[in-house]
């Protein structure tokens, strides 16, 4: 896929919802280890609401789709991940503006804006064992890929980097979010938000590559 229109964006969002359905038990399980055991349930609740809204009335631009996702997540997820993912989608929406289609550079910039939004809200840095640990490397990889590659290439690079980075959160000691209360006892477990970030990026990549 060289560029991405509203329909493709919506399809990608549906793919994310699908992925969350598949993995929510695992995400909740991760969150039980070092959090409060609701991360999967939170995201399922949010993405189901998103799909409902898309079914009812699919917006006409990629930016509008992203904004719908943002406001729906903010108003249905709660918890830490609700406002954080919500902000990510909101910043991405703002970044892409009214564009009818997104090219590789725009997708990469949108990802950057999303990550910046999460940092602005959550004040986490790389190494704090949060979704930022997956987000930041994904943004780096996306930027490199965007220099030459397609939308699919950008998202594939982001997904791969996020997956790798998510798994690398295991040895870290958490400094933000609920897991930080555990101190040393948070070591040895993958951060649920980093893992869900990787899943979400992987669904984008899958959706983009299957869209050709």
């Amino acid at each position, binding site marked *: 896929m060289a560029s991405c229109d509203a329909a493709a964006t919506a399809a990608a969002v549906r793919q994310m919802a699908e992925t969350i359905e598949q993995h929510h038990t695992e995400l909740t399980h991760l969150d039980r280890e070092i959090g409060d055991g609701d991360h999967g349930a939170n995201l399922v609740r949010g993405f189901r609401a998103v799909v409902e809204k898309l079914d009812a009335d699919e917006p006409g631009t990629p930016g509008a789709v992203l904004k719908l996702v943002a406001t729906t997540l*903010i108003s249905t997820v709660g918890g830490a991940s609700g406002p954080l993912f919500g902000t990510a989608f909101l910043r991405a929406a703002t970044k892409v503006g009214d564009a009818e289609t997104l090219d590789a550079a725009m997708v990469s910039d949108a990802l950057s804006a999303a990550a910046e939004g999460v940092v602005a809200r959550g004040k986490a840095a790389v190494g704090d064992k949060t979704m930022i640990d997956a987000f930041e490397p994904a943004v780096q990889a996306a930027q490199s890929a965007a220099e030459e590659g397609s939308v699919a290439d950008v998202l594939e690079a982001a997904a791969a980097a996020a997956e790798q980075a998510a798994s690398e959160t295991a040895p870290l000691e958490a400094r933000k979010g609920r897991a930080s209360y555990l101190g040393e006892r948070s070591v040895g477990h993958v951060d649920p938000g980093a893992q869900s970030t990787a899943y979400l990026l992987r669904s984008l990549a899958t959706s983009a590559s299957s869209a050709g």
Partner: protein
Amino acid sequence: MKKIINDPDEVVSEALAGMAQAHPDLITVRTKPDYVVRADAPVEGKVALVSGGGSGHEPLHGGFVGRGMLSAAAPGAVFTSPTPDQVLAATQAVDGGAGVLHIVKNYTGDVLNFETAAELAAAEDIEVRSVIVDDDVAVKDSTFTAGRRGVAGTVLVEKIAGAAAERGDSLDEVTAVAEKVVRQVRSMGVALTPCTVPHSGEPSFELGDDEIELGIGIHGEPGREKVKLQPADAIVETLLTAIVDDLPYAEGDQVLLFVNGMGGTPVIELYLAYNSARKFLSDKGIEVSRSLVGNYITSLEMQGMSITLLRLDEQLTELWDAPVSTIALRRDA
């Protein structure tokens, strides 16, 4: 998992519907977005108090909505902070023109969602202040981390700030007294058993038959460390030592002693622990001049308790003693 529920997705909404029908004299429950509000809201000319957080801590927060305490409460899903639109709707519903104080427990989710709601409310010209409660001494504080959790001290903040609002204090004054309570209150908890979130269906952590978990939060998060089961006196000593070390008390200081059950602990054990705490404090020369014992901020069916100390002065004592009329806390005029 054994629970008296129908569908995990409907636990909160069905319980709210029950609360509404059981207490029409005290509260009204609004839905979509969900919040609990004083039956007589908005109270014109008085500061309003809004709190909220995940469900599963009942009676917190909905049980503390009423005259002399909260104006509204926004209940999230079980153990999940409420969304900004819940908090915003609650804030709008209670604003009586004198401003609204948000009382927020220090969890990333609660802080972020209340922050967003406060921004949205400000955009509608409602004056909002926020106070963040972080009384849990089990968590090491640091500016590089999420900081301490807000636990049982929240009930005391809500009661005392609620009394200030009820007597007509200004938003500045109500905020100041809430902040004073936050500065002077410390808590720590212990779990004998984990709890199970309806959606997850599995216990929040594992504990051996002879183990207890020290320093637990109120969301079934595991705590500071697992230790062997101990006599009540030893458990109380561990909790109170951590508390008193953190906010040192001088001999002769007056305190409010709050022994809170985590939901599944028999009241007889709470009074026993309270008795043990009185012995500990009296040996240290700390005078208990006010008390609260019961299940006020819980973690579903968890067995365990937390102990909270609030250093009192004349102002706080007077506000603590003021009348209150909520589902879970009542005191006559």
